[in-house]
């Protein structure tokens, strides 16, 4: 049967070619669409993880909120015992007030987050920043080093090696300053707000905190890991060890719970990265919704196209069907023959579209979009990172295949339902 179907498929290909071209184009478009969406999602989440202490983070929500983490050992144990694929640890002290300013040569710029990194833990992760100038030295990290985004550097007209003053308020409420040396400028869209990085001990000193203080502890997970389920696992481990907020899942949820239940002793919240990215999640969900809508519309068009084409093909091949039936072929065999041809059409078109789509994705990855500041958040080194989300692509191709098959069922059944004598009489 397969041999006959293949022979028919080749012989009748001139009848399939428009439909085949449409299917190839569809597969190509969906491969690119899902590839780009996956790439943008992955890149933005990776950047967000670097900005927000990883995929799973622990914060102290005691009242009043000093954020200081006192139970580091217990939290680290919870991370270890959760059995997760941990790519890197994040150990930070943060300043997150509205009055943090960098001043250089008479110009000041407010920073949304001043992030003190423990470079002994974060060096590898931080070195993945896209440095445009300077970077991390191979030797010891300078304690007076400062790393800022290209946006900040441009606005302050500051270059690597320049002395910059950081102005903050100490935890005791006094205005304080520290002179820092610009050590690196990294590519960043500042979508999450201007952030600058320095050694956490230096930040703690200027904030009047004990040198080893940390306010955020987190982990980055290996590729493909689900931050939500990982955070839940950590939370289950941690709640048995130290006072912990009930599972809230989002930063807003944690604030709401902590405001309703003010506790003076350290009480920790375990948050997944998604819990801090409401806007990004909304944007990504919107993109996926648009994708799903496009897929749906395309599949409906494919189904109608397949149906019409097969109606025509079945009509044009009536005498052929009559001959096969006269030679003893059963109705079911005729239907199977037509459906097998449609499966071949769907399969070959999908594979061709997939290959062309992958090629298009690779070509897209070669284009430099660095000039577009808005797009920087979604780009890796100014380019669309190559991503091939096989689950999404396979699902769409599978559904497309099924649609092709479904579209061919009625014409195949009608063709097979004709009496051989009528079919042979067909002009």
């Amino acid at each position: 049967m397969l041999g006959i179907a293949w022979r028919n498929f080749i012989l009748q290909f001139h009848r399939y070619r428009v439909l085949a071209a449409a299917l190839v184009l569809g597969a190509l478009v969906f491969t690119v669409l899902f590839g780009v969406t996956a790439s943008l999602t992955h890149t933005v989440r990776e950047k967000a993880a670097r900005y927000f202490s990883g995929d799973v983070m622990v914060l102290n929500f005691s009242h009043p909120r000093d954020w200081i983490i006192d139970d580091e050992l217990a939290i680290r144990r919870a991370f270890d015992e959760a059995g997760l694929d941990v790519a890197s640890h994040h150990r930070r002290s943060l300043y997150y007030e509205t009055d943090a300013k960098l001043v250089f040569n008479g110009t000041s710029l407010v920073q949304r987050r001043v992030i003190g990194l423990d470079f002994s833990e974060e060096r590898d992760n931080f070195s993945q920043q896209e440095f445009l100038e300077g970077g991390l030295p191979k030797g010891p990290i300078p304690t007076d080093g400062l790393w800022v985004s290209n946006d900040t550097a441009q606005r302050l007209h500051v270059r690597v090696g320049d002395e910059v003053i950081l102005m903050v308020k100490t935890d005791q409420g006094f205005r304080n300053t520290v002179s820092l040396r610009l050590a690196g400028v990294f590519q960043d869209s500042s979508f999450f707000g201007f952030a600058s990085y320095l050694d956490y001990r230096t930040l703690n000193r200027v904030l009047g905190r004990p040198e080893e203080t940390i306010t955020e502890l987190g982990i980055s997970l290996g590729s493909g890991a689900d931050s939500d389920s990982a955070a839940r696992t950590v939370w289950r481990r941690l709640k048995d060890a130290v006072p912990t907020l009930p599972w809230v899942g989002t930063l807003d949820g944690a604030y709401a719970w902590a405001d309703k239940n003010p506790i003076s002793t350290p009480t920790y919240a375990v948050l997944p990265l998604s819990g801090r990215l409401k806007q990004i999640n909304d944007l990504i969900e919107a993109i996926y919704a648009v994708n799903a809508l496009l897929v749906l519309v395309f599949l409906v068009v494919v189904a109608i196209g397949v149906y019409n084409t097969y109606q025509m093909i079945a009509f044009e091949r009536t005498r052929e069907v009559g001959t096969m039936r006269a030679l003893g072929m059963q109705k079911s065999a005729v239907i199977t023959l037509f459906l097998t041809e449609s499966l071949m059409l769907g399969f070959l078109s999908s594979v061709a579209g997939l290959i062309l789509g992958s090629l298009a994705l690779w070509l897209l990855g070669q284009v430099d979009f660095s000039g577009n500041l808005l797009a920087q958040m979604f780009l890796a080194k100014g380019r669309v990172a190559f991503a091939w989300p096989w689950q999404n692509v396979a699902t769409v191709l599978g559904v497309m295949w099924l649609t092709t098959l479904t579209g061919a069922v009625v014409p195949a059944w009608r063709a097979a339902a004709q009496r051989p004598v009528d079919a042979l009489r067909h002009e």
Partner: protein
Amino acid sequence: MNITRKIMRLFFLIIGLLSSSGVWAEINSLAILSKIDSQVSFVDSDFSAEIAMTQTKPGEGISQRTVALFRRDREQKFVMLLLKPESDRGKGYLKIGNNLWLYETIPTRRFTVTSAKDRFQNSNARNSDFTRSTLALDYKIVSMGKEKLGPFDTTIYNLEALHNDITFPKTKLWVTADSLVRKTEDYSLSGQLLRTTAMPSYQEFKGRFVPKKVTIIDALLGKTLNGVFKNETTEYTLSKLSTDPLPSLIFTQSYLEKNSQ
């Protein structure tokens, strides 16, 4: 005789203890700063004046403001109303005790809580520059010295904050023998100079003193023009001084609302 000696010993012992414990220094510090405060405060009457302010941002030009100032120092109240430019007319500040509100008219008429530490209308002056002088409550003297400042023989006092409700944690004052501050330098906790203020001349008014002209130089903000760094500066003069009683209604939110209409 023995008793006299014992009393004398006890007296010197107490003096010694006071000196070594720093209590004497604190009492002395309080007295010096209280004297400076009293020279420029109007605790027995209300005080009002008109302030003409000029803000210079190198490379960006000059902006001018006229502000009406009303103070009731004994109750720690003050109101400032912006009179010019026209676009800011109706804006104002109200301070009652430790609460300070900014009344804005654009985009909507509303009060927002602000801080004495904040900049006054994006100038180099802080809101706290216009309130009653409370050095004795806010600072302690940690060291002092003598210095010639232009024509003035001055005593320099290095001050450190007693609490965190002040604008600058460290301040240096140049004070003449008449307890008038001629110059101040404000520092961050780490000792970074943030701004310098000069008040070279005062006008005596109803037994108190009011600076004729105040020049504030921001130590950090400015621009390099033709290879020379020019600091941002704010200058203001006080005129139309008065100690006439002010109606209590002035020191209310409804007055600011009414004034803006």
